[in-house]
């Protein structure tokens, strides 16, 4: 689904993206592109493509002009951090660790082989949210879901207000091949309790891999330090041998502490 291919002239191609759709048509140097983003909460595990179709339906079509033979629909992380809320406030005791799994909607780009971007669109329209205080912070994309922690492999089975259990949600999302599956570990290394409310994922340094059609990202590690600070790092080890479809920025740092600032990172867990 994410590989480069040489489209036939004057033929519409469609990618099914778990509720969203993308379309492409080539006519010489003219490219016609369209996206139908869909809604995060209405996603259905149905992905595939490129496959020829008649028309892109009601999706708005944009144009690009450029020479190129092969094109691909490529997944990237959104331009803004993702923000996730936990279902109920979680208290992490000293030394405890909580794990979460989340499926992030990617930023989709039609790219030529030389890296030229013809068009891009966020899969699923997400609402903006602010992560920080009133004087400084980051504009983030808010995922409209409540995360449940997974301790020792157990999945939370309490029924949510929308009628779905954690099991239903996870099983539905786990089959979605257009979403980026991300593991998050939050560890409390201090001697005090840590109340967890919201988690922000800064994707600057993260890679995206592909395995059996699924998109996987590096594991996000959020750790409190003994001095009372916070540290977010990226663990590349678990997927190192897999095919990489997106490479994060190489800044020489594996931690975002220096780049983001101490005061701001404390807001991650409501400290």
């Amino acid at each position, binding site marked *: 689904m994410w590989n480069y291919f040489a489209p036939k002239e004057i033929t519409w191609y469609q990618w099914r993206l778990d509720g969203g759709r993308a379309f492409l048509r080539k006519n010489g140097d003219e490219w016609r592109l369209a996206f139908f983003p869909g809604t995060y909460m209405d996603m259905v595990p149905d992905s595939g493509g490129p496959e020829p179709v008649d028309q892109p339906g009601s999706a708005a079509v944009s144009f690009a002009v450029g020479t190129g033979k092969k094109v691909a629909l490529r997944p990237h992380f959104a331009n803004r951090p993702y923000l996730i809320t936990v279902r109920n406030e979680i208290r992490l005791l000293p030394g405890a660790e909580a794990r979460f799994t989340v499926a992030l909607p990617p930023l989709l780009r039609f790219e030529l082989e030389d890296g030229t971007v013809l068009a891009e669109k966020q899969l699923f329209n997400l609402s*903006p949210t*602010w992560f920080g205080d009133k004087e*400084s912070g980051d504009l983030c994309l*808010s995922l409209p879901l409540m995360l449940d922690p997974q301790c020792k492999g157990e999945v939370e089975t309490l029924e949510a207000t929308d009628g779905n259990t954690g099991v239903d949600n996870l099983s539905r999302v786990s089959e979605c091949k257009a979403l980026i599956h991300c593991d998050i570990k939050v560890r409390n290394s201090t001697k005090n309790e840590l109340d967890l409310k919201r988690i922000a994922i800064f994707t600057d340094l993260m890679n995206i891999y592909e395995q059996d059609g699924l998109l996987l990202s590096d594991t996000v590690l959020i750790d409190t330090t003994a001095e009372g600070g916070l540290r977010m790092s990226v663990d590349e080890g678990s997927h190192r041998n897999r095919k990489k479809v997106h490479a994060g920025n190489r800044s020489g740092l594996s931690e975002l502490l220096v780049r983001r600032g101490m005061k701001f990172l404390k807001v991650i867990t409501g400290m």
Partner: protein
Amino acid sequence: MKTEVLFSNISTFFSQFASGDFYNKILGTAIAILLVLVVFSILNRIIGKMAAATLPQPRAFVIKKVIRYTGYVVAVMTLFNALGVDLSALLGAAGIAGIAVGFAAQTSVSNVISGLFLISEKPFQIGDVIQVGDVNGVVQSIDFLSIKIQTFDNRYIRIPNETLIKTNVTNITRFPIRRLDVWVTVGYKSDLERVRSILLDVASKNPYVLDNPEPLIVFDKFDSSGINILLGLWFEKSEYLNLKNSIMVDIHSRFAQEGIEIPYPKMDVYMRQPTA
């Protein structure tokens, strides 16, 4: 006799042009002035680059100006010294002239000093949107005597620095997010809890409203026509117009859809019949 003295003085004056010492002196003075100007020019560039890299633009601008004018003063003093001009009398005259100029230019001097305070205090920077009195606009430049603003209807306004020091200046874009306060009045027969949930729903569906900080709803007062409600919506500062226009439309259409009355001032008039 007097004629002879005059001719003698004139002859002495012109004879110095024939001597080599005079031209040596002129050349030496010219080289000294040139050296002073070149040194200060190089100093200006070096310090200017360092200041531009580390300090805000207005401060760097002031520093470069100070260095340049200091260079001019040193060059002029070098020239006077080379010509043998006694500066003490000149300084005395300059002092008296300074007092006269000071009285005449006190407003300008006040503006300059106010400008220095503004640069050090940094209530706003170039590119910020500020409000001074009834003037709103984007700061284009911060200069010695005044600041220049470009209004949203594309007018160019010059505001003296003294005015800024003396009045309230609102920096609208200082912080990254702002709150838009929308006042809504609903009729007395309205179900307020239902109104609250509708307003929150409208806010959650608007693409410019941030869900954190959460929208604020305050039931303000029982007014003459209805109940006043404050709806405070947080947004990223660049989306002001988009939010303001879209939220008004959203609230209006949603209230119409839900059958919620937005009352307007009414008056009941009783006509008293005149007694026969």
